[in-house]
């Protein structure tokens, strides 16, 4: 039972990691705590939902659509709104992204109603049974995708030109500007990238979670938690943080009480911030 609970937790943790990586990226590069983060997950999930419902496209195949549309949205949000407050005190960006959260969540509520929806694929009930444990295929595939995505992001940031430009801007914006990097453009690309991987995670979420327009805030909160565990701004930390949180929640639900698992999440977050704000590995950005 412990093994099954841990495996379930790890699979859950993979998806946590996937949608938290973008949050970490955006914070690490721009210092923006994006309160509208969960809405990006929601939009990704609804993209897949509508493509499945109206076009009968499998949610795993609709991933490129989520990625591209969320990239464009993220780019625009940064370019036209957040870039204007990026030099103001950080509170401005929190409140600004909170405003964006209100707009997106309530527009979605207006157009798509508050109904709970889910995607029922032909394979969603089938499991891989191995060594006495049950592993749903959809969750395994999502887990794999999540790992791939974080690996891809890490590769992009360390090995490509745009990735290096992003890192340079994060380290020293003025110096990067002197070297010919357009900071505003790099910021917009960063937000776009963060939004794209978050949107893809939304598509993955839609394969086995219930989705509804107001789901965003709870995803934002989980992302806070994951990113603090792993170290804010440190991308591989998101993976570690996600897995730890997933296992922790799963074990709490199995051995104590499912209702307490979110209270526990917040206390872990609170204690981490007090005792180890740079994350478990100590590699996060600390002010």
């Amino acid at each position: 039972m412990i093994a099954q609970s841990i495996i379930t937790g790890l699979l859950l943790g993979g998806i946590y990691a996937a949608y938290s990586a973008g949050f970490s990226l955006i914070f690490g590069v721009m210092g923006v705590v994006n309160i509208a983060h969960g809405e990006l997950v929601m939009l990704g999930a609804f993209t897949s939902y509508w493509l499945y419902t109206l076009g009968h496209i499998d949610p795993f195949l609709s991933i490129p659509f989520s990625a591209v549309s969320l990239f464009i949205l993220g780019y625009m949000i940064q370019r036209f709104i957040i870039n204007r407050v990026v030099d103001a005190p950080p509170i401005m960006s929190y409140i600004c992204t909170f405003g964006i959260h209100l707009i997106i969540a309530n527009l979605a509520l207006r157009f798509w109603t508050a109904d709970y929806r889910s995607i029922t694929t032909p394979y969603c009930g089938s499991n891989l049974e191995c060594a006495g444990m049950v592993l749903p295929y959809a969750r395994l595939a999502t887990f794999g995708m999540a790992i791939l995505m974080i690996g891809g992001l890490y590769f992009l940031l360390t090995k490509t030109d745009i990735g290096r430009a992003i890192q340079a801007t994060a380290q020293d914006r003025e110096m990067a500007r002197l070297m010919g990097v357009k900071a505003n453009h790099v910021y917009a690309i960063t937000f776009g990238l963060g939004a794209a991987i978050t949107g893809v995670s939304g598509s993955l979420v839609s394969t086995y979670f219930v989705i509804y327009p107001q789901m965003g805030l709870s995803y934002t909160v989980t992302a806070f938690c994951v990113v603090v565990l792993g170290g804010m701004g440190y991308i591989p930390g998101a993976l570690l943080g996600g897995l730890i949180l997933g296992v922790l929640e799963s074990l709490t639900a199995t051995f104590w009480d499912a209702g307490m698992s979110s209270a526990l999440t917040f206390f872990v977050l609170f204690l981490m911030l007090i005792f180890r704000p740079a994350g478990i590995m100590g590699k996060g950005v600390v002010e």
Partner: protein
Amino acid sequence: MMQGQKSIFSLPGKSVFLVAGILLILAIFPAFHLSGYTLRLMSMIFMWIALASCWNVMSGYTGYIDFGPVVYFGIGAYSTALLMSRGGMPFFLSIVISGVVAVLFAIPVGLPTLRLRGAYFAIATFAFAEAMKQVALEWDRVVGVHFLEGSHGITLPIGPSHQFFYYTFLVIMTVLFLTSYLIERSRMGYALKAIHEAEDAAELSGVNTLKIKVSAYAISAFFTGIIGGVDAYWLTYITPNDVFSIHITIQMVIMCLLGGMGTLLGPVVGASFLTLVSEPLWAKFPYDYLIIIGVIIVVVIVAMPRGIVGTLMERKRRGGGT
């Protein structure tokens, strides 16, 4: 204290009369047989001015963004509800005890969290507030008692008339305005602003920054707790989702930002503005209300990053300079 008292009188003469005059008019207002709706709206404005001022005392002056002040509102609301409905205590005693209970939570929470800076403090306070909401929701079920009643909520004795709450909130708002004024003029106020400008330099100059921050946090929690208690009695029925709602936090923050953080009048202007704007919007466009509020927030933040009072002061200063 003496120093603070003196500084009241050092207010430019006109402003004292202006403030006193406005308060006097507000005090005799209900005599004009206003409708229940108007009284309720005014009471709500007073409540939000008071709440925004609570946030301003701590976060406005120091720049430490408290993203979980609602936790003290909720603790105050629950304390008052329990004291009145279970203990049969009188209202005024209950709200004062609620304020003290909030402080008893605030000090042990403030001591570790106020060592954190920037986004970390904001996220820690936010996490604490959400954790307490979950505790309030799940306590009874997990512990196996009937105490907080979880999501069923608690019913309080039926409260008195609208006028009663009008005056209660008017008094609380006035006390908070004076408190903010006294703090702003006192050594503590200068210390808080110094923390905002350069915390390490303030520490080096002999300011016990942690003590000052925790004091401001506790004062803010005390009043937030009292207001939570009054609001619980006004609502007569509370649930964790209502009184620990993140939307209360956000409103407090946004009102200060709109008005101008770290200014005496900021919370007054911001809270009046947002309540007066959102009330008719809510009545006319119940479905699009939050979308419009979101747009207003984004536009104001982008166009007036220093808030209404801050932008006006800036303009005045620039105008005077040329």
